[in-house]
């Protein structure tokens, strides 16, 4: 499915969703669910919450379907903006709860070896994920929208509510930091 077809399908599904069609919601989840969950797994301080946050995103989509205005942006942008804000809220709440001692600090991926994975790629992945987690919030959001959602700079800008140039700057800075963490000999192979 091309990006254009995807956008048109999403638009049709949103129209059906606004009429209360639950089948349309299931199809919308099939279109965007995996991407939203993958983004949440990278963006959240606690990746275990990714599934819950992804579900919450689509619950909000369902509840606010009649408020979606197609003149203000594509369906995908609207959904990703909800995902972005939910991840920010969840991280903020998690931080407060950890500060108050109500929640254990999430373990870093580096401390979570998975024997089934190849050690080299796992170590590389963990190193990059650790580096992404250390990026400033806006840079992290931008690079994850690029990598997880495979968005263009314009779409990232629209989702984050910033100018295209500002989004490009965030991407440039994030890439620069991450390049230092990845092996330069392998990164563009």
């Amino acid at each position, binding site marked *: 499915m091309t990006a254009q077809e995807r956008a048109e399908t999403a638009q049709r599904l949103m129209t059906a969703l606004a009429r209360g069609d639950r089948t349309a919601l299931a199809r919308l989840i099939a279109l965007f669910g995996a991407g939203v969950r993958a983004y949440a797994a990278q963006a959240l301080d606690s990746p275990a919450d990714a599934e819950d946050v992804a579900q919450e995103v689509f619950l909000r989509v369902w509840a606010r379907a009649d408020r979606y205005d197609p003149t203000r942006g594509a369906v995908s942008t609207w959904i990703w903006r909800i995902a972005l804000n939910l991840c920010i809220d969840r991280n903020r709440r998690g931080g407060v709860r950890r500060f108050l001692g109500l929640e254990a600090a999430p373990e870093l991926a580096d401390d979570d070896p998975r024997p089934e994975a190849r050690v080299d790629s796992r170590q*590389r992945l963990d190193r990059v994920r650790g580096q992404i987690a250390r990026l400033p919030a806006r840079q992290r959001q931008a690079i994850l929208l690029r990598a997880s959602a495979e968005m263009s700079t314009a779409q990232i800008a629209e989702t984050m509510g910033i100018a295209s140039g500002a989004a490009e700057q965030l991407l440039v800075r994030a890439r620069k930091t991450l390049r230092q963490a990845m092996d330069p000999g392998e990164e563009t192979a």
Partner: protein
Amino acid sequence: MTRKDRKMEDDDAFDRALTALLTPERDTDTAEMSRAVLSRIAARTTPRRAPLAEVLTAPAPLGAGFAVLLLAAAGVGYALVPGWDDPMGLLMIGDLLVTGGL
């Protein structure tokens, strides 16, 4: 190829490498998510009108609403009564409002 083009190509390659690195983590199965979301929607959905049996077993909320409507109707009735410019009329209305006319 200009330096800018090379840089853009490098950036695209970097983004693809990053996507490839993170993508194996992606679980593409969304059936379970659909089921969970639809179940949560079904759990949240409550009937908009209370069934008759519910009203009969717990009549207080509906009774309170009815009483408020009666009071509002009485207030409107008093407000429309002629004699607001007459001190005796005002005393009578005040008496009715305070003591219920007893």
